[in-house]
């Protein structure tokens, strides 16, 4: 039995109830017991003074790669869950491109048991859409779900076969499982290393046109209309995609979308000097795309921020740009980047940001959390939205160090992270 926790005097922001004000939060038996003024906890409860801080439902990331099983030298469920907790996340959804892939009950169960052993952030496995992520045969969605999968995706690879995508959307309806798709028309993007634009032209790198993403987004939207299935569009990167999603939402389709902190922050210019830490798929795009993505997050066209946390070994990135793997770490920089990029310039309120990093992700994948309502799970984060800090990859809890943000000064950081009523990260005490 864990001790109850009384968080006193913080600014409590609960986007699920549109509340924002100074209050105490009392957590007991793994639940939110009460939120109010002058709460007196039972004897022996742990008291945390949150004066000057923000108390919010824990952040939830719908898109991370924890690399276990198969690539434990890059990250494990335990290190990933710790990195998540350090970044203020109380739950993450682990993408299935492991080895073996999460296309069977055994692997899903293994990830869940590793997460339980670690006892840090909650880890919800995502199952594959197709067996072995081969894009040929559907995985057993019912089995995956009963083992604990919260969604299905072949992330890392797009579902190119439109018939397979159609049947996946239809079949998933039985279970209410969201389908998360990596949108990339690979015959058009083929062998591209960065965004197709002036930087790629100068550097002599093969470009991936924005159209490669947009064609796939358009197809997925059309198939969602055809089937009524729930499609979640991963890591959107172009203004064209934003326009397509806006139209789909206007039509009332069951479509949701995510954007990463780095696509909200950086442009293809980050690749100058062949910086492999700026190599990702989808690639960093243009200034106009960054602006459109920020606006889309503000107006709700894009539902959530997800990190696409992608650990890679340092020497995998220490090579020719063409040969370097895609992706960067996200969990430990996401909140600071989002505050610096969106809240401080006045684009989003802190409450709006927390809605897009906690409440809304919980709703999309039907996860517990994202709320401080009575009886909600005691997954809570105490944030300092003003503190200025400099990103130091050496201090990461993640096993990997691949980030283009090293040395960048940002504002906003998680101070204490509580999962199931237990403190899993306390920066002061860490």
């Amino acid at each position, binding site marked *: 039995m864990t001790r109850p926790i009384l968080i006193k005097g913080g600014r409590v922001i609960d986007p699920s109830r549109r509340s924002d004000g100074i209050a105490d939060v009392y957590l007991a038996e793994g639940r939110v017991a009460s939120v109010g003024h002058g709460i007196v906890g039972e004897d022996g409860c742990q008291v945390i003074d949150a004066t000057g801080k923000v108390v919010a439902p824990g952040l939830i990331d719908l898109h991370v790669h924890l690399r276990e099983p198969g690539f434990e030298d890059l990250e494990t469920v335990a290190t990933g869950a710790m990195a998540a907790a350090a970044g203020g996340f109380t739950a993450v959804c682990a993408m299935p491109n492991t080895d073996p892939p999460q296309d069977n009950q055994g692997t899903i169960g293994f990830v869940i048991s590793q997460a339980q052993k670690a006892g840090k952030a909650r880890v919800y496995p995502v199952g594959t859409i197709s067996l072995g992520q081969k894009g040929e045969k559907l995985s057993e969605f019912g089995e995956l779900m009963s083992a604990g999968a919260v969604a299905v995706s072949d992330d890392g690879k797009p579902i190119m076969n439109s018939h397979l995508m159609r049947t996946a959307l239809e079949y998933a309806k039985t279970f209410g499982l969201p389908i998360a798709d990596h949108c990339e028309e690979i015959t058009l993007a083929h062998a591209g290393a960065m965004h*197709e*634009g*002036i930087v790629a*032209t*100068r*550097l*002599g*790198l*093969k470009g991936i046109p924005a159209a490669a993403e947009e064609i796939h987004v358009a197809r997925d939207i059309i198939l969602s209309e055809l089937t009524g299935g729930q499609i979640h569009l991963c890591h959107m990167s172009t203004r064209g995609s934003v326009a397509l999603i806006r139209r789909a939402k206007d039509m009332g389709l069951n479509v949701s979308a995510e954007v990463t902190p780095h696509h909200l922050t950086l442009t293809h210019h980050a690749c100058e*000097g*062949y910086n492999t830490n700026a190599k990702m798929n989808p690639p960093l795009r243009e200034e106009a795309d960054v602006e459109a993505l920020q606006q889309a997050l503000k107006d709700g066209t894009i539902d959530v921020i997800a990190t696409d946390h992608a650990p890679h070994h340092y*020497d995998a990135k*220490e*090579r*020719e*740009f*063409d*040969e370097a793997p895609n992706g960067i770490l996200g969990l430990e920089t996401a909140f600071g980047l989002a505050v610096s990029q969106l809240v401080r310039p006045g684009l989003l309120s802190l409450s709006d940001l927390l809605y897009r990093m906690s409440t809304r992700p919980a709703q999309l994948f039907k996860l517990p959390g994202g709320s401080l309502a009575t009886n909600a799970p005691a997954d809570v984060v105490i944030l300092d939205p003003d503190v200025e800090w400099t990103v130091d990859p050496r201090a990461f809890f993640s096993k990997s160090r691949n980030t283009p943000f090293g040395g960048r000064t940002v504002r906003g950081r998680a101070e204490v992270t509580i999962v199931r009523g237990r403190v899993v990260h306390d920066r002061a005490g860490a």
Partner: protein
Amino acid sequence: MTKAPALGKDLVGLEHLSAEQIRLILETAEAFKEVSERPIKKVPALRGKTIVNLFFEASTRTRTSFEFAEKRLSADTVNVASSGSSVSKGETLVDTARNLEAMRIDMVVIRHPSSGSAEFLGNRIRSNVINAGDGKHEHPTQGLLDLLTLRDKFGKLEGLKVAICGDVTHSRVARSNIWGLRKLGAQVAVCGPASLVPRDIAALGVEVIPHIDDAIRWADALNVLRLQLERMTSGFIPSLREYNRVFGVTRERLERAQKDLVVMHPGPMNRGVEIDSDVADGPFSVILPQVTNGVAVRMAVLYLLAGGGPDWQHQGGGE
């Protein structure tokens, strides 16, 4: 006392050189032309320097040209080709570089299929690095020898109209030419099928001319790029025959233009594809002077980088 602009440690591309630095290389190359005409074609300038020619792609012309340049400067050279080296056994570029450095070499000349590899290497080793062609990025010594050849022919580059014809998208020669020519005041146009010309190339300050006849009419000189034969199999153009018919530089096309034109080609040529034999061997061609100038330009680059002093000065009065 004249103060010369330093070239820095490496020569990765012409994009980051100033017009003054490019002119320094060309003027130094002028002096080296004469060395190749001497009875003993060798000077001791780089005596005791060790240079590795690290070639991850097959190349006869560029490698031979660098080797002549190095030997005529009395450097000690070692050639490492990708076949038969540890490179083909999966060693990373960084390991290869560190191993070479551990052998205390002074300079590396690198040819590599990946864009950015020369810069990558230069940032990781203390030796001077010279880019002998990195992927689709740059081939600075080719760009310099093209500049030198045009300057020989026309006396100056300011205001000269040069059309770069062919597969611009995949060409490192095109990029180095564009930077070098623009910096020295030439006008540059590119001409090729739209499937082989980057959409945003105009942002580099060049004009796009869709038809080869218009390019020939416009230009004082053509730089005809080599068409990699695999462009056909990967679907950028339908056939070599059609390419020659629509974009080939033929004698008929040049005669129709009724003017004297200079024709360059970085080699090796696909005769009958991007350029016809009677053009390549004809009076307009400066293809062989290009090769001669290649050695002089490479000698100049090796010489200027070898001392490495950031701010050397010409010392007047006796010694």
